[in-house]
């Protein structure tokens, strides 16, 4: 119980620390904006168009693969904690699970889902 309270306290501590440090420059820094300070930096040329561009589909592919393999890790870590108790049977069951996911990785690799130009 006390350990969970400790986690809560460090959450509050970190939030307050972050807010204070950011607020410091808001209070102490000068405030004289002009047109050139308020434009975004694009290596000296005038910025044009909306900056929130359409994203490349590859980033979505990475995100989808991430979900698949992160869920795999979520299943494997609890197994890893208790694997010693279950011996060869536990290993065989996990091996089937890992093999199916490895086939998934090979399939995605073969279809070019991991290619980056």
């Amino acid at each position, binding site marked *: 119980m*006390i350990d969970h*309270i400790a986690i809560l306290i*460090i959450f509050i501590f970190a*939030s307050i620390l972050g807010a204070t440090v950011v607020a410091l420059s808001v209070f102490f820094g000068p405030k004289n904006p002009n047109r050139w300070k308020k434009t*975004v930096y694009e290596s000296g040329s005038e910025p044009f168009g909306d900056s929130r561009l359409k994203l490349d589909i590859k980033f979505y592919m990475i995100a989808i693969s991430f979900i698949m393999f992160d869920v*795999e890790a979520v299943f494997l*870590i609890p197994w890893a904690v208790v694997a010693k108790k279950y011996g060869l049977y536990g290993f065989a069951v996990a091996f089937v699970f890992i093999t199916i996911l490895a086939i998934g990785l090979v399939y995605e690799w073969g279809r070019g889902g*991991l290619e*980056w130009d």
Partner: protein
Amino acid sequence: MLTDILLILLKIVAVVLLFAMPIGSLMTLLGDRKQSSMIQNRVGPNRARLSIIPGLGRLPLVGIPHFLADGLKMIFKEDAIPDGADRTWHNIVPAMALFPAIVMWAVIPFHDHYCTGEIVVQNYRDICVEGQTRNFFSIANLDAGLLYVFAISGVSVYGAAIAGWASNAKYSLIGGLRSSAQMISYEVSMALSVAGAILIYGTLNLNEMVVQQGHLIGGWLPMWGIVVQPLAFFIFLGAMMAETKRAPFDMPEGESEIVAGYFTEFSSMKFAVIQLSEYVATVFVGALIATIFLGGWQVPYLYGDGFHFGNTPTAALELPYWAVIALRIGAFSFKTIFILWLQFMLRWTLPRFRYDQVMNLGWKIFLPLSLANLVITAFVVAIL
């Protein structure tokens, strides 16, 4: 109850403000500037002087006044927010970046639980008899310690991604996208490579992991993570370096391509906070790798009552308990700083990767290797 909460506050201040932050910010100076200047055959920072303290006014002090001056200077700089930026998120994001870097420290054990009674050493473990154990040397002794670390490091993706989006600048957006894609890619191999170590220790509690690393294989070889899981150590080191966007993996902020990546449009203390959170995260990588793979606070052959050579009940060289604690905390700090030094050496030795190389390394090399490492480890553990 009140004393418990005061103790927790004391521990948080000690760990975060007296250990993580000073080492993190000192490393910005010594690691990033002085070490880089030595590698590149320059002098590095040497102009600032501490002239307010008599006697030190003429000494360069290896450039330490520069780092004090930089921190102070940032407070008095203008906070410029570009037109079209999302002001709310632009203000919140630096704190969001600092938050995970600090709260991750909650589970790092700096020493075993303090024993009020007498310590008996059995089978390479300190057993506390006639007394209680008190948790003085880690902020929270969570049973799911390592899962907590993974959870918080998942949250740290948001800081970079939102910073890139909120600035309304093209360089920032590209930097934010690159950093989020890179961080989630390496999170997979990070979790899977360390699963092998979890298999061997059979626990997620970081302090219990360190206690088990005190075991001696054959009576002489310490059972550190790097000895039983050498491949996982290298995969984990690489993945964690990519997570913190350091070293050859600094694509998200590649200076020669996208200016400063996701924090191009941040100035004054906001910029300093994002930088500081990166350095604190780098120190955390050192501490976590030291805990899982380098024996944490363990000194080889040193147990609660002194040095034991082999599985003996009495110590070959007895030491008082305070000396053991001091040696162990010193060893932990040394290991952390060693991993940090290694990261900075790699940063200034290797050229930056191309982005497709980073992605190939994560998905096509680290991920299959960590899966293979897990299967082989599981097989060996199952037949033994």
